């Protein structure tokens, strides 16, 4: 697609007018919001404080792209902004751009708008934060922007201190799978906070992929994978504790994450099919940190949902999985909850078979990803049970074993991916 045409459609006249007024910048912080009235104030103040204190000399702009909030989020942004700069000496005018993408809450239009702003303003470094991020602190913005601005990295992924039972989809799927296929040990492949260079922003914006359905599920993942697979200079940076997500919609998150990632595998096939030696990834701060305050998890329900899912979706699973794999899942579903264990080997094989089936579109892709949800629940149940009393290091050792397992079965996956049937 001709990039200019895409921009014309995406950006409103008012947004363009604001861009014209701001002009070239060194740093851009994009804040995506959608009904985040409660939390956006903290994010705005953190961003302003960071820019005013740590990037005094740079030309900066904050861009709030709101996805049609109905709870007064844009007003909260304005109010917080007025308070944010209080008492902080600044050399320059702190610039703000606010716009709305209408009612699209999927984040794609918002992210694309931020990329467009970065491209048109020639921003050298851009950070994206979520307005729902309760833990966003001024230091986060600095930690995200600095590697790009000062050290010429093109992409900065976040690292968080997470609860040991949080981020399980990332730790059980995205991280080990990405590491096995891309050779890159990036921990957060579907980040809510990240940073990128103007060069990467421009290339992503001008990509012809924006209309692809798979990208709609996970634009953040797509940017991360684009950076990894196109030899951009990547790093990860420790931000701090990430509060547990209390938002609902687990099924939707799983669906989007898996769908988005499988689609990325397709679009980057030439890169990873060749086989990659493991890369070293520059990391600022600790590369993982787990906390272990007590939390309540309804494991029993998870197991029931797994058992029900495997039974009800038997026909679909049969079309996706090898007979042996399917049989093993069925066998596990018949076990008593206390003896139920979903091994690393089975988990890896199942994922690989799902990914290959997605690639070959053996059934409608939406249905395929929906069928993955109970399987994931089963894995999580097992993971939580096994690690119920384990410390962070033991859990991390298990994740490392899982990564190795993904690597061991890589050839199997490539075979399945390359041959339909």
């Amino acid at each position, binding site marked *: 697609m001709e990039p200019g045409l895409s921009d014309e459609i995406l950006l409103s006249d008012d947004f363009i*007018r604001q861009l014209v*007024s*701001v*002009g070239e910048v060194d740093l851009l912080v994009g804040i995506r919001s959608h009904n985040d009235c409660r939390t956006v104030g903290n994010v705005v103040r953190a961003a302003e404080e960071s820019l005013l204190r740590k990037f005094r000399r740079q*030309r900066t702009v904050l861009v709030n792209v709101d996805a049609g909030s109905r709870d007064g989020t844009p007003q909260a942004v304005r109010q917080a902004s007025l308070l944010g700069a209080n008492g902080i000496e600044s*050399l*320059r005018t702190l*610039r703000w751009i606010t716009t709305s993408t209408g009612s699209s809450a999927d984040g794609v239009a918002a992210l694309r708008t931020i990329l467009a702003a970065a491209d048109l303003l020639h921003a050298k470094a851009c950070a994206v934060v979520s307005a729902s991020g309760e833990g966003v602190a001024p230091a986060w913005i600095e930690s995200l922007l600095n590697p790009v601005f000062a050290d010429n990295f093109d992409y900065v992924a976040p690292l968080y201190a997470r609860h040991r039972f949080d981020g399980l989809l990332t730790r059980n799927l995205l991280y080990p799978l990405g590491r096995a296929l891309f050779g890159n040990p990036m921990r957060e492949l579907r980040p809510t906070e990240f940073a990128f260079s103007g060069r990467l922003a421009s290339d992503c914006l001008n990509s012809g992929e924006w209309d692809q359905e798979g990208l709609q599920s996970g634009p953040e993942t797509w940017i991360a994978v684009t950076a990894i697979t196109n030899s951009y200079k990547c790093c990860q940076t420790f931000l701090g504790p990430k509060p547990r997500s209390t938002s609902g919609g687990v099924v939707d998150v799983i669906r989007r994450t898996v769908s988005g990632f499988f689609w990325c595998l397709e679009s980057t096939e030439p890169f990873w099919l060749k086989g990659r030696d493991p890369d070293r990834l520059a990391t600022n701060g600790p590369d993982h940190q787990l906390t272990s305050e007590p939390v309540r998890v309804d494991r029993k329900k998870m197991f029931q949902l797994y058992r029900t899912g495997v039974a009800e979706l038997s026909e679909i699973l049969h079309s996706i999985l090898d007979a042996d794999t399917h049989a093993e899942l069925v066998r596990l579903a018949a076990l008593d909850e206390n003896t139920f264990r979903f091994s690393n080997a089975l988990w890896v094989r199942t994922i690989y078979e799902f990914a290959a089936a997605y690639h070959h579109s053996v059934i409608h892709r939406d249905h395929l990803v929906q069928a993955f949800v109970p399987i994931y629940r089963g894995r999580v149940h097992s993971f939580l049970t096994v690690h119920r009393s384990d410390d962070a290091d033991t859990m991390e050792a298990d994740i490392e074993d899982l990564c190795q397992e993904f690597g061991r079965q890589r050839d199997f996956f490539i075979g399945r991916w390359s041959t339909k049937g």
Partner: protein
Amino acid sequence: MTVPTQSEWYKDSVIYQLHVRAFYDSNSDGIGDFRGMEQKLDYLQGLGVTALWLLPFFPSPLRDDGYDIADYCSVHKSYGTLDDMKAFLAAAHERGMRVIIELVLNHTSDQHPWFQEARSSRDNPRRNWYVWSDTDELYRDARIIFVDTELSNWAWDPVSKAYYWHRFFSHQPDLNYDNPDVREAMWNVMKFWLELGVDGFRLDAVPYLVERDGTSCENLPETHEIVRELRHRLDQSFPGKLLLAEANQWPADVSAYFGHGDGDEFHMAFHFPLMPRMFMAVKLEDRKPIIEILQRTPEIPASCQWCIFLRNHDELTLEMVTDVERDYMYDEYARDKSMRINVGIRRRLAPLMDNDRRRIELLNGMLMSMPGTPVVYYGDEIGMGDNIYLGDRNGVRTPMQWDGHWNAGFSSTDPEQLCAPLVSNPVYGYQAVNVDSQKRSEHSLLSWMKRLIQVRKSSQAFSRGTIEFLDPPNHRVLAFVREYGKERVLAVNNLSSTCQAVELNLKKYKGSIPIEMSGKTIFPRVTELPYLLTMGPYQFYWFRLRRI
């Protein structure tokens, strides 16, 4: 032509600051002089300036470039005679130019007969003309101004075995203004020059006249009282003459020097904090520093006026900026440590702007359009360079570059005999930058400056008008309207190195036709809609807003 007699003439002036020593040498001794300066008055008249401010020309050991005065009522023999000065004064007046001279009130040279007498014995009648102490403990809250050279404001006098007070160099003892005899003596100095015909005084180092323990010894009420007394005597005996304050202070403190009511202290005072912020705004490409400082500038009495400048004989002072701003200015404008002195940057305008003609023009454009009487420092009208390897601030006081020949046309003596070495590098040297060659080109900086000054003088909105800042969303653009009587001028400045589009809210001037003042080009009529202008890098426009 004679000097116009309108009141408040200083408001409409364009001042040219020059150094007798560095301007033109008429007798081939390598040092500029009054006769030489007189010969160059036609050049200054052609430039369009209307007042000349002379740096100190009095007898002096010249350890502080003449600010260490040894005799207030005479002329340094290197610069000529008192008669030469009188002839110069008359010639300037004939060309419609006023002459402002320096009056260093605060201190004398330690070679001044007053100090020689004062130190000769503790009983000498002049002893109390200076500030003495047996200890160096008094006035400890007073800051040291020349931090690069002085460790204390007290200096030990081995002759009379006591400490004497000095706010500047130790060879410049402060006069004691608590002594009525000192005040009377300084009035007599002023009277002497006023009777000769000078039009005003730039009073040096005003805030430091009086000392009181437990204070900063700056801006004390007693200091204001002394100024008021001088002003009163001036108005009584020499109406229409000017007092201009050098007080490197924040606007709120300086504005006190305008006095009460209609202004009973200084007619004008330098706006020191604005100057570095103009440079900062251009480097930041953001109008914020300028707007902020002008918004923090208090109203002044109607008869008074700010005096504004880009560069002068001193360093680009960074005393009136915050630490953050100072660090920024040093990093951006004086990375080389030899460019720094005291709390400032010893550089001329052109080198500060990397010899970028567009930026030099923009800064001059702002200087000529912002509220205040502008001062042009000699040589900056042709983009002269500096020599940071000369000591103190001498690097910005090198001889004027008149032509590309022997000694830049400044003097016919041997180059080795010149009062200061000429700037001779290929970029700023006199072969490349000189009056003669620039006179020959319509597009030279000199020719451009002539036109700029001419346009500035064409509207009293610039010299006397109110200012209202516009607030376009594009912060790289500084836009304001100056208004005086029925005259309205819109100034729009692009502070950025790139092209900019700006939408101005000119609803208030709906129906007006903007006429660009340099080319007299008509622009589309102002409507209710935002007025869109596109501007080239560092471009500025002045529009006369006419309702036709």
